[in-house]
């Protein structure tokens, strides 16, 4: 044979050609498959970006609040008589001495928030010597002014449906021209409790309520869940009863959370007589919701511990309990913690069951203990979203942002804990 190509029989060559064609089809199918996967990810990311962008663009402005500078005469009589709201009104009237009529005065006072007296109180607390003097003071503007300054409502005089009267628009313009209007970082939003007035409403009460609730949830569900998982996976005999329990736990994970709320209402509030709206009860109900997730994740993590490690320990004469506590549990911990954090994140966003146990109440005070009535973040979002004031629209988005940041912080903590546990080996 002189030419190697003639050495290949025709039949073989044909099958090689068929195989080559087939190979091309296969590569095409592979590329298609990859493209579909990539497309799915891009679509999902697109939605996520859209969602985040909507929330951020709506909510970002809530972190700024409009303040108006007015010269305040810290009149000793008014202060001692505890008539700070009156002081606010007289101060703004001094700024516009031309205003005479009662209704005009009311409109003028409406430029400032009904909580503007708090600014005077704060100024007094910071420096008691101002008493009796006249000082320029930045005071919180009303939500309508705030909205107007942020451009959400019209500042065009004479339009029907304006929230601000034409006079108010004119005063505002005058104040602005005098440099007496400016936007500052909205500390109220992050540091105070809820309020009917948007410019005075804050999230801190909800944040503290959520922290209390989650702390209770963690304290209750983690030990319970881990103990259950360990017992079921390591010690329980495999019989009809454990099978039944297993099925029920899996089912519990799929039960709508509002049912857990009803359960909480019936048992914790009605039967055990626990306080309504308290983070303690909220935490307990959320713990019930978390439990199946933690148990299922915990069992999976325990199951994933290689049997060789168990055998090694048993072969050395370790007891069953020593095998679990010395080897299996430490190895399963990262997995269990991931499951726990997932469950907790789920609980953090839960609203419906908390509505059932009365956590939807309007609560202004910041809770000092888990027994005090309190709001939680998702319920706060729900409450604000339901409020008619225009200013609550941006505050709802801001609350969602805070919730997301909270969630992100939890996940970050989870990842860091995991890393720490895993890095040991």
């Amino acid at each position, binding site marked *: 044979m002189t030419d190697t190509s003639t050495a290949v029989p025709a039949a073989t060559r044909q099958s090689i050609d068929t195989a080559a064609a087939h190979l091309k089809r296969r590569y095409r199918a592979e590329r298609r498959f990859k493209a579909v996967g990539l497309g799915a990810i891009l679509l999902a990311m697109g939605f996520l970006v859209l969602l985040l962008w909507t929330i951020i663009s709506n909510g970002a402005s809530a972190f700024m609040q409009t303040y108006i500078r007015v010269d305040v005469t810290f009149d000793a009589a008014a202060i001692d008589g505890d008539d700070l709201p009156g002081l606010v009104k007289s101060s703004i009237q001094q700024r516009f001495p031309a205003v005479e009529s009662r209704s005009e005065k009311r409109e003028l006072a409406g430029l400032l928030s009904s909580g503007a007296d708090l600014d005077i109180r704060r100024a007094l607390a910071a420096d008691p010597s101002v008493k009796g003097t006249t000082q320029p003071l930045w005071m919180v503007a009303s939500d309508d002014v705030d909205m107007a300054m942020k451009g959400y409502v019209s500042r065009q005089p004479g339009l029907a449906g304006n929230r601000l009267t034409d006079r108010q628009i004119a005063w505002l313009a005058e104040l602005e021209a005098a440099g007496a209007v400016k936007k500052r970082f909205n500390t109220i939003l992050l540091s105070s409790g809820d309020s009917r007035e948007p410019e005075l409403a804050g999230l801190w009460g909800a944040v503290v309520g959520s922290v209390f609730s989650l702390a209770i949830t963690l304290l209750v569900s983690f030990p319970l869940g881990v103990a259950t998982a360990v017992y079921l996976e390591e010690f329980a005999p*495999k019989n009809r009863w454990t099978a039944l329990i297993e099925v029920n736990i899996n089912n519990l994970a799929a039960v709508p959370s509002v049912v857990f709320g009803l359960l909480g209402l019936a048992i914790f509030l009605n039967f055990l007589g626990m306080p309504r709206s308290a983070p303690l009860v909220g935490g307990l109900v959320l713990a019930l919701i978390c439990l199946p997730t933690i148990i299922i994740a915990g069992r999976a993590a325990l199951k994933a511990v*290689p049997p*060789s*490690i168990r*055998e*090694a*320990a*048993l*072969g*050395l*004469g*370790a*007891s069953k309990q*020593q095998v679990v506590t*010395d*080897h299996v549990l*430490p*190895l399963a911990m990262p997995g269990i913690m991931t499951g726990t954090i997932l469950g907790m994140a789920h609980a953090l966003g839960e609203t419906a069951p908390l509505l059932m146990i009365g956590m939807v109440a309007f609560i202004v005070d910041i809770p000092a203990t888990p027994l005090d009535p309190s709001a939680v973040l998702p319920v706060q979002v729900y409450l604000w979203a339901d409020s008619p004031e225009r200013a609550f629209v941006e505050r709802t988005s801001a609350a969602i942002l805070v919730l997301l940041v909270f969630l992100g912080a939890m996940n970050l903590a989870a990842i860091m804990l995991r890393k720490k546990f895993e890095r040991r*080996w």
Partner: protein
Amino acid sequence: MTHLPSRLAKVSARDVNVHYGEKHALKHVDLDIRANEVTALIGPSGCGKSTFLRCINRMNDQIENAHVSGALTLDGQDIYDKGIDVVQLRARVGMVFQKPNPFPKSIFDNVAYGPRIHGLARDQAELDEIVMTSLEKAGLLTEVRDRLDEPGTGLSGGQQQRLCIARAIAVSPELILMDEPCSALDPIATAKVEELIDELRENYTIVIVTHSMQQAARVSQRTAFFHLGELVEVADTEQIFTNPQHPLTQGYITGRFG
């Protein structure tokens, strides 16, 4: 089959049967394991050799539906007696597994684990002593002396397996069971482990399950051939590999299995 007088035997099995539920995994096994010898158990997969091995330290207890009958004695004491504490039994009978399975802990803690749970050391100095001696005996000390606090899982496969042997001998067992200890190792590491087995024979009685007939030939003094749950033949290793008496043994070791 010839029986040795029981007094020579470290482990003595008489009519041992193991059932896994319906499956009769080990059938009427009579086998004596002599002290300070290496006994190799060979046979095709599923022949019951590992089952027999795991009867000796009652690792079969872990398996549900497993039922052991017959007399199995260690130094004349019935292993399956009600009065025998499994934990104590396993302190007397060490085990080394197929895949090196060091704990995900430091090299030191791996070896120290056994002495710790059995309370063999009164203070840290004694524990150090036990760990060092065990590593020395396992021929690993020179290789790991400077990194006792590093994870045992970071060692090479052969070193890991020798660490497992060190871990087993740290509780001063009388008998060491090895379940295919070299099947995951390269030839050099295998040779080191085999050399170690040969050295350990002086102080311990060793039973080794192996799929490598060359390994059985190299390390053992006695070889037992199992087939379909039955002990077909047990004899001096030399005899088994030059002139086996049973045709099944002959067929298996020469590679003529149907």
